[in-house]
């Protein structure tokens, strides 16, 4: 079933054309990576789906309804800098739960503290946490309001490579447990092939969809399997990079 639809989306800022005629159908529960070079307009695209920007032409619909503003049913996750430094871990997770009763709220917070592995840090402030923990906190804050869709904008970009790998595994585990639709923006080819059901390869600016690659490998993915390497290299080739340093 189709969840998020981009219909002939274009975006121009004064003097620059950023996005050109983007059409894409994201299925319910699907994990889609939007892959492209830095500055190609991926974040702009995500801001439009998130309802923070209005496109110049075309529209985005979710469950058939046109997106015009942000909505708590679809949560945007930034790099870990999006957590509120003035709130503790549990207050951050509870931030969007202001419509629940105290009891429901407490149960919900406890569940997500557990899910993202922050037990014991409920009363800590973000600055007392590591980068990876802050990132997990932000994911927990997003999940706590029980959204159907998550938008992640290069969420692991600021983490070291070991933490990044762990976070990918965590995210996949959470995605499988919570059955969310995920739109994940990245410029990291390996990351996109490790995570996504489909990788949407964007061109340079003005960005259009260059190719959509189905990643037909089951999780957990073996990063040295021939099929993984084949798909990864085909994307490298698509972007015009020889896979050599």
């Amino acid at each position, binding site marked *: 079933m189709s969840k998020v639809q981009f219909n002939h989306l274009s975006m121009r800022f004064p003097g620059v054309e950023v996005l050109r005629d983007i059409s894409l159908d994201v299925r319910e529960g699907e994990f889609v990576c939007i892959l492209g070079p830095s500055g190609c307009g991926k974040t702009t695209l995500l801001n439009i789906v*998130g309802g*923070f920007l209005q496109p110049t032409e075309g529209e985005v619909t979710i469950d058939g309804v046109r997106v015009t*503003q*942000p*909505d*708590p049913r*679809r*949560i*945007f996750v*930034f790099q870990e*800098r*999006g957590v*509120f*430094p*003035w*709130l503790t871990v549990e207050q951050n997770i509870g*931030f*969007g739960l*202001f419509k629940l009763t105290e009891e429901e709220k407490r149960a919900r917070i406890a569940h997500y503290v557990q899910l993202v592995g922050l037990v014991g840090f409920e009363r800590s*402030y*973000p*600055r*007392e946490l590591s980068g990876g923990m802050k990132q997990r906190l932000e994911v927990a804050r997003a999940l706590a*309001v029980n959204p159907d869709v998550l938008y992640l904008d290069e969420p692991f970009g600021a983490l070291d490579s070991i933490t990044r790998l762990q976070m990918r595994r965590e995210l996949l585990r959470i995605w499988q447990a919570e059955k969310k639709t995920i739109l994940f923006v990245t410029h990291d080819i390996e990351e996109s092939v490790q995570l996504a059901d489909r990788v949407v390869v964007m061109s340079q600016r003005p960005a259009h969809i260059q190719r959509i690659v189905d990643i037909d490998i089951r999780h957990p993915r073996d990063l040295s399997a021939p099929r993984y390497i084949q798909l990864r290299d085909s994307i490298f080739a698509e972007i015009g990079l020889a896979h050599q340093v």
Partner: protein
Amino acid sequence: MKQRILLPLATAAILIGTWDLAVQLTGTEIFPSPPDVVRALVTLVERKVLWGYIGDSLLRVAGGYVTAVIIGVPLGLLFGWYPALGRAANPLIQMLRPISPLAWMPLAVIWFGVSNIAPMFLIFLASLFPIIVASMHAVRNIPPMYLQAGRNFGLNTPQLLRRVVFPAVLPRILVSLRIAFGVAWIVLVASEMIAVDSGLGYLIIDARNAGKRYDLVVGGMLLIGLIGLALDSAFRLLTEERRWSG
């Protein structure tokens, strides 16, 4: 902790020693030695005027400063939150800001006459502009993702202001309030040169005019400095009680 108290005390001891030595070596008749200053202050206590002076000064600074906070913070937040309003007001603020509060003195006397209000008004002016400007910048410098996240979770504007904007600007505003308080205390002496007959600033002017009592002049200066130090330390203790920073 030991170092934070002992080292500054050592510095003070060295300075006072040098001061005393200098007075003795030069044999000056005008400039007081440290014991002279202490004796002068003790006589003020005995004549039961010192505590009243300190109280009056604190009252004036508090009156002017608190009014500046009450008006300046909301005004600055408003200018920061509504950029058009900020653009409209900013040139005026930047024009008024460099005018020394002392330049307002004649006007203050016309408007408020011989009263506590005139010095309070000068202290108010001195602290108002730094507070407005800092509050305005604090709002403008809120990381956009905090606001975006707030909207994303479905907050309306009043909720956003209360739950995101206010806590996000608090650390910067507290720092600016502390700086503005320092400015207010500096302006005190000047503000007490007019229209009043009490206070630490008045003490200094009066001691000089009424008989060149430089022991009282220096004593008044030291008192202003020491009280300023105490108030700033108290302010810092109050504002740094947070475990998070912005």
